């Protein structure tokens, strides 16, 4: 009944692209609802959950060291092009809501920000609560793999929670790539996949869809481990006045498949440098032009695109949302919520912090 009520056509007044493919969310929502039925009658421990940060997936990637003197490095200063190109940013978030004796309860949510002529609009998809336990973990893993999210049989419940966040994020990314035209699409993370992994297919599918619609995908990594000449990218300061991008040609790390060319970008004087991956099949001029169009058509704060910042903000769960979700679960599925006994506190008193775990 619930699924039949779904209506994914967005209101036309903002000219949002339509998220057409509802195949995944239907199964996704079904799984969410079915998993939640398992939690009925359980006791949910919620100690400290509302202060927990979301667990992140896309921000981390394997370490990449760029220090080989053989690799040519070029700095290109970019001049913004203001041409009203739509900027679309996508991000997703997941959070643990609590745990029972049998599993964990989490929620995931995705957000899309549209920036057309510097007017920002959003769509948030979710939150979707999930109850992940030993009984349904195989079913969830199956769903993840079906949608090219790499997940091993040994994945912990917390890892599965993170993967569910990735699943909705990837679904939104693909749908936005398919439904938008001539736009700059910003995603959180990188365009890097392990060789022979499921995610490679997923990225290829997304990039192919984007190219067909003349979209350019730019992937921003906030927490990259990328090092250039032995220094972390985030702290890279060059003598050039921003905005600039630094290109690294002919770079191919071991065991990683790069679907994008890696750039280091610094857009404002104050702020950080970020790793930016751009679809490597695009001509070089087109890649540089995509960065210029981003700068010309989006606000940049601390060197980070505003649209992507908003997408992160809109997808992230706040503490009151966690309480709201706990209330929803309590009312809809009749679980009893208790505040978990803090063993560390009772053992160590004021010294029982979480820091030394």
């Amino acid at each position, binding site marked *: 009944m*619930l699924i039949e009520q779904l209506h994914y056509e967005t209101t036309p007044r903002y000219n949002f692209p339509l*998220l057409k493919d509802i195949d995944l969310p239907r199964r996704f929502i079904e799984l969410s609802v079915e998993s939640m039925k398992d939690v009925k009658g359980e006791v949910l421990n919620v100690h400290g959950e*509302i*202060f927990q940060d979301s667990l992140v997936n896309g921000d981390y990637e394997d370490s990449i060291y760029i220090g080989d003197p053989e690799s040519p490095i070029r700095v290109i200063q970019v001049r913004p092009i203001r041409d009203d190109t739509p900027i679309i940013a996508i991000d997703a978030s997941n959070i643990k809501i609590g745990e029972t004796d049998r599993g964990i309860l989490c929620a995931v949510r995705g957000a899309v920000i549209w920036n057309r002529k510097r007017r920002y*609009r959003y769509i948030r*998809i979710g939150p979707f609560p999930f109850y992940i336990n030993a009984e349904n973990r195989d079913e969830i893993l199956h769903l993840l793999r079906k949608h090219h999210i790499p997940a091993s049989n040994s994945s912990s419940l917390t890892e599965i929670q993170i993967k569910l966040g990735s699943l909705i994020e990837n679904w939104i990314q693909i749908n936005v790539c398919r439904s938008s035209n001539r736009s700059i699409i910003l995603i959180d993370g990188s365009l890097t996949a392990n060789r022979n992994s499921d995610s490679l297919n997923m990225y290829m599918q997304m990039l192919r869809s984007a190219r067909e619609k003349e979209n350019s995908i730019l992937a921003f990594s906030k927490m990259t481990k990328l090092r250039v000449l032995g220094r972390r990218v985030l702290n890279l300061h060059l003598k050039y006045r921003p905005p600039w991008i630094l290109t690294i040609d002919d770079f191919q790390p071991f065991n990683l498949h790069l679907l994008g060319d890696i750039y280091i970008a610094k857009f404002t004087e104050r702020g950080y440098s970020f790793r930016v991956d751009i679809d490597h099949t695009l001509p070089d001029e087109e890649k540089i032009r995509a960065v210029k169009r981003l700068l010309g058509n989006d606000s940049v704060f601390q060197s980070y695109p505003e649209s992507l910042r908003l997408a992160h903000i809109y997808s992230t769960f706040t503490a009151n949302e966690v*309480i709201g*979700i706990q209330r929803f679960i309590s009312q809809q599925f009749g679980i009893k919520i208790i505040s978990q006994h803090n063993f560390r506190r009772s053992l160590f008193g004021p010294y029982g912090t979480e820091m030394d775990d």
Partner: protein
Amino acid sequence: MIEAMKLYKKTGNTIQIISFPGEDVSKGCYLIIEDESSGKSMIVQVIDIQFANVPGVMEELLRNSFPEENIKGEDVDPLDVTSHILYIQDARLLICKIHGTIKDGKIISDSSWLPSRTRSSIRRLSVKSLIDLLEINGGLPILLGETDESTEFSINAMALDGKLNIITGKKGTGKSHLSKILVLGLIDHGATVIVLDLNGEYTHLNLTSEGDKNRYYRRIHVFTPGSNFKVTLSQTGLSVILKILTHALSLPGTSCREFRRIWKFLEERRLLSLHELGEAIRNWRCNQHIKDALYSRYYALLHSNFFTDNEYEAITLEDVFSKTKYGGAIIIDLSNSSPLDRQIVVEYMLGKLQDLLSLNKIRPVFLFAEEAHLYLRDTYWDDIVTRMRHFGVFTTFITNQPNTIKENIYRQADNVFLFNFINEHDLQIISKAARVDVETVVSIVRDLPPHHCLILGNVVKDFPIVIKVRPLNVQTGGHTKLFFTVNQRDYQLSTSEAYRLAGES
């Protein structure tokens, strides 16, 4: 989506309750906390409604703020989780004051016990139920208005009997209106009411707003000093005249002694009249300064036009009171009297009242005094709340300047009818009324809309109640004259006319 309110915290006589959207709770309303396990229920009044301190709300608000415009968009939320999130964000914290406990069906003033957080149920206690519990509206009801639950609210006139009352609030909030309702209510129950009417507001209480006679037509008696209200010296008596001379006209003690001699001299010869008094002062052998002082006071009495030698145009207070034998109001219209004449008349009235009451010649009276600081001498305040009350003068002070009433009057007030005040200084003054805690007064009174009144004291058995004062179909005199009420266009000049007039001048 109704969710039960939750007991959150208790500090002293303050209780904090978590409330959710959809729960019909407003400032001033009463809640009952029922704890079945202890067999007791606690009655609390909501004095403030705040946002509950929900974690993460700041982030939520910041998320939706944007320098140029709010970001618009939509939520695809097939499970409708967002409604629960919004529900949490709108959670409210009710700050309540404990007013009593119900045990075995009776209200007792016990706030020391602690209801169970988990087992207590909290619900709104309608004012009607509270009134029934308190048995407020029995006896001789005076309908004052209605509660925010649209139920009629009456007080028992007997709760005003022998009591000191204060009606205060800022200008235009409806103080005089409530005062008129009380006056007419008391008349309905056969009481005698004296109104010291500073602005001539009560003079048409016997007419409907359309100008027709109403049922009070024969029970409202308007007396205008110097017009239809004149007295002779012999009716007044020496003691009252001396009070007038001393307090209203500031005659020094030595001069008073000389005046007493003159009075006795005239009285023995049955020559007590204004004319003879003037002659006696002129011919009296005494210090010239004293003679001058007596003369100046004599002329003040004479020019007040309140005293007369003509017994046919003079009236006695006993005659006046006989008209209100079955209930009525004596309106002393002071609107056209000078400040000095007002003081003379008020001294006369209070002096004579005291005399008549002490001799049991009249029944106790209810005195309504508007802006009494303008005509009441300092020493009378204490007199009124202590001595005169025992004689049978039960006063209601009406003022929009709460600082004009002494702090000890507030402390001894039995009933206080509070209308809106915003000024912090005023709020601090009225919060000195011993009948209620400061927080309740300040918090509720600050937000009272016009014509809404917070009632404290004996009439509500110390359970503060907010009411909307009912309309009254009587003609209200004393309207402030306004400049812009006339057709302004008749007085407007065209620019050319203005230039022409300027040139002429």
